């Protein structure tokens, strides 16, 4: 390969982008873009909520509040007022939660 020829080849390579046309974006580019944007929006909402829960201070605080509420409720139920009749814990919980054994069938008059 002669040096002149080499130089000519080099110039051809350096000018090979002359007259190059613009590449066109793939079909349905906008549709795919919108789909990605919606997907990212959804994952960012879930991600933000997840990140909040994974913060140790916040999750420990929430757990402490729930535990404290439970303890207070149980303490209230277990501590009997002086004049009140003594009831067992399950009955007290049932009374507190309005879960009662209402005698539905007692009201039904027996058919002749």
């Amino acid at each position, binding site marked *: 390969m002669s040096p002149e020829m080499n130089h000519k*080849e080099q110039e051809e*390579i*350096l000018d*090979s982008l002359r007259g190059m046309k*613009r590449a066109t974006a793939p079909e349905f*580019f906008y549709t795919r873009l919108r789909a990605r944007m919606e997907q990212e929006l959804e994952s960012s909402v879930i991600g933000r909520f997840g990140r909040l829960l994974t913060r140790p201070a916040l999750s420990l605080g929430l757990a402490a509040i729930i535990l404290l509420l439970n303890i207070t409720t149980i303490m209230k139920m277990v501590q009997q007022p002086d004049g009140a009749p003594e009831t067992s814990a399950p009955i007290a919980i049932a009374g507190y939660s309005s879960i009662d054994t209402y005698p539905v069938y007692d009201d039904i008059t027996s058919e002749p």
Partner: protein
Amino acid sequence: MTEQDLIQQLRSGDELAFKQLVEGCQDMVYNTALSIVHDASDAEDVAQEVFIQVYRSIDQFKGDSRLSTWIYRITVTKSLDLIRSRKRKKRFAFITSLFGPDNEVLHDPVNFHHPGVVLDQKEQAAILFRLIDQLPENQKTAFILLKSEELSYQEIAQVMDLSVSAVESLLFRARQNLRKLLESQGGQKRK
């Protein structure tokens, strides 16, 4: 619709204005990204990220340049980020292959053929794109904006936030470096 109207509508979250912007600029963004990243799928990813950023940060666009200049700037930044991340992954894969049992050989990507190149110049253009990849980032950006997008020196200067003389200097050095790389390749071939 003037550019100012379009920007106002984009700021107010108008979907139709966004669609109009995407359809008007998608080829410009895709072509620039493709010329830098040399892969159609990656270029589409970059182009999508560019428009997502435009949609999210249109309020930050000060309007001291044309909207297309701002979009070019985002495209170049995102494309170069992708190349950097590829290089990091490649380095990491090399290191892990040294220590791990997986001795996978790392291949350089095959020749890139830009779809817009004239058919009889495809081989030369593939060589040129491979050499452009070896240029420093700023020289590569200026050269691609000039050759692939046919921007003027003034426009390249605005996109790269440089003076016109700085762009001229970058392009001069880019051509010099490309010549050197070609000579060294020619020398290697002769050996």
